[in-house]
């Protein structure tokens, strides 16, 4: 089932995140090449591409973990190019990394609360109770250490922890990588709930069918370049392109 497209007024509004002509290097390796990327408010964007095509590098560049050699990134109209990840996070971006980044020496509750921030606009945001409602498993394990959780629980914790910073946009890298099918379904359901809560998201995942079922728009990277940027319907309508750029 396709997710409903974002409302027209949302699509006509100003993008929340804009990256223009981004070039990122690791040493001498040119990873991202003149990448243009944007995310509208409340939009769910799929970031697709084979392994090593630059998806994670793009997320890390947006988050400020890697400094682009040139290009400009704005978040809610504020230039965040080259700013520290902490400043980018406080401006409204949150990253759920592929390796989850759960702190093993903090309890589940501590992982969730120690970096929590209220909504910047004063609205009722994500609270510990709301996260425990979203992930009842975490509520049961609130006193467990981070390293006592299963992979799926760690992913839930990483998502919950990102939500506790009340972001405008969430970047989910390899959202369901390495998880059991049942847990994968739970994570996709969570992404749907994040979408329903009005939080924009950029989702990277190898499971194309599940991912395309909930994205409004998709961007395909090949060798660090954007080779497709369009609606889910447009992407699905071109099986040859999918096979060429995303097929295993």
């Amino acid at each position, binding site marked *: 089932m396709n997710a409903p497209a974002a409302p027209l007024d949302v699509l006509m509004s100003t993008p929340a995140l804009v990256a223009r002509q981004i070039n990122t290097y690791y040493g001498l390796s040119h990873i991202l090449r003149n990448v243009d990327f944007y995310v509208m408010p409340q939009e769910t964007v799929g970031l697709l591409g084979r392994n090593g095509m630059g998806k994670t590098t793009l997320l890390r560049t947006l*988050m400020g*973990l890697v400094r682009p050699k040139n290009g400009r990134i704005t978040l809610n109209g504020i230039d965040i190019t080259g700013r*520290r*990840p*902490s*400043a980018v*996070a*406080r401006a409204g971006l*949150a*990253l759920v*990394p592929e390796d989850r*980044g759960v*702190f*093993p*020496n*903090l309890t589940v509750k*501590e992982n969730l*609360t*120690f*970096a929590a*921030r209220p909504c910047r606009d004063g609205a009722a945001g994500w609270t510990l109770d709301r996260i425990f409602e979203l992930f009842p498993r975490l509520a049961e394990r609130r006193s467990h250490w981070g390293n006592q959780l299963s992979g799926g629980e760690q992913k839930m914790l990483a998502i919950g*922890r*990102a939500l506790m*910073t009340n972001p405008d946009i969430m970047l989910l890298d390899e959202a369901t990588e390495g998880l059991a099918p049942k847990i994968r379904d739970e994570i996709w359901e969570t992404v749907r709930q994040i979408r329903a809560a009005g939080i924009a998201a950029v989702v990277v995942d190898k499971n194309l069918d599940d991912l395309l079922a909930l994205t409004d728009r998709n961007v395909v990277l090949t060798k660090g370049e954007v080779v497709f940027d369009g609606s889910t319907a447009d992407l699905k309508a071109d099986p040859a392109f999918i096979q060429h750029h995303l097929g295993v």
Partner: protein
Amino acid sequence: MELILIQILNGLQYGLLIFLAASGLTLVFGILGIINLSHGSFYMLGAYLALTLTSYTGDIFLALLIGIPLAFAFGALVEWLFIRHLYDRDHLQQVLLTFALILIFNDLQRIIWGTYPHSVPVPSYLDASVQLSDVLSYPVYRLAVAGFCIFLALCMVYIIQYTRIGQMIRAGESNREMVEVLGIDSRWLFRFVFAAGVSLAAAAGAIAAPIESVYPGIGEPILIISFVVVVIGGIGSVKGAFFGSLLIGLADAFGKVFLPEFASVVVYALMAAVLIVSPGGLFGRA
């Protein structure tokens, strides 16, 4: 029996004192990734601050009350001036810069306080001994030093376990990048940790000043023994530093009495033994 009791008391008191210095070193090493050879200089700073401030206040504990915040501020300044430039550099550059700091601090000490040894008076209300037996007694001030160290250790446990800054410190210990990604400016966290490490070393130097005389280079032996403690306890582990310090304190006290010819070797032999059994230290990551 009394001899053993005395050695246990001496060992615990010395171990607790080392713990104050070593806990700062292990936090700085574990969280900031900095090998800080100048850590002993901050122990020396504490001793000389105790000398100067006690001459004004007349009481070592009042001197500590003023000296610890001063050392914290000095530590923050040193981090801002020098240490922050080392975070992305290799260990060789860290060692070179912090060794240079030792030379600078030693010269500053000589310019400000001179080269003569000094003594710091024990407060009159603690200048007494507890009778342990008909022939053996133990100075009350040494017991007060142990009590003060335990008090600071408990404060540290409380801060690390039950406060938000403590959670940030623990998080930074395991994944610095993720702390920053969650919106916490690691520059301020690192500055706080370094300054806290400096003030802990200075507190150790200050509280020990009335026990040993205050002289140039007083921090160097403490630096070496603190590194031994960090290795034994496990890099970055405050709990490891605590038990490692007590172990070293007791080994040193008993070694001096029962193996006087090998006294200086005992602690290093202990370190080697721990590393063979547990290469990551008692509470460290292997």
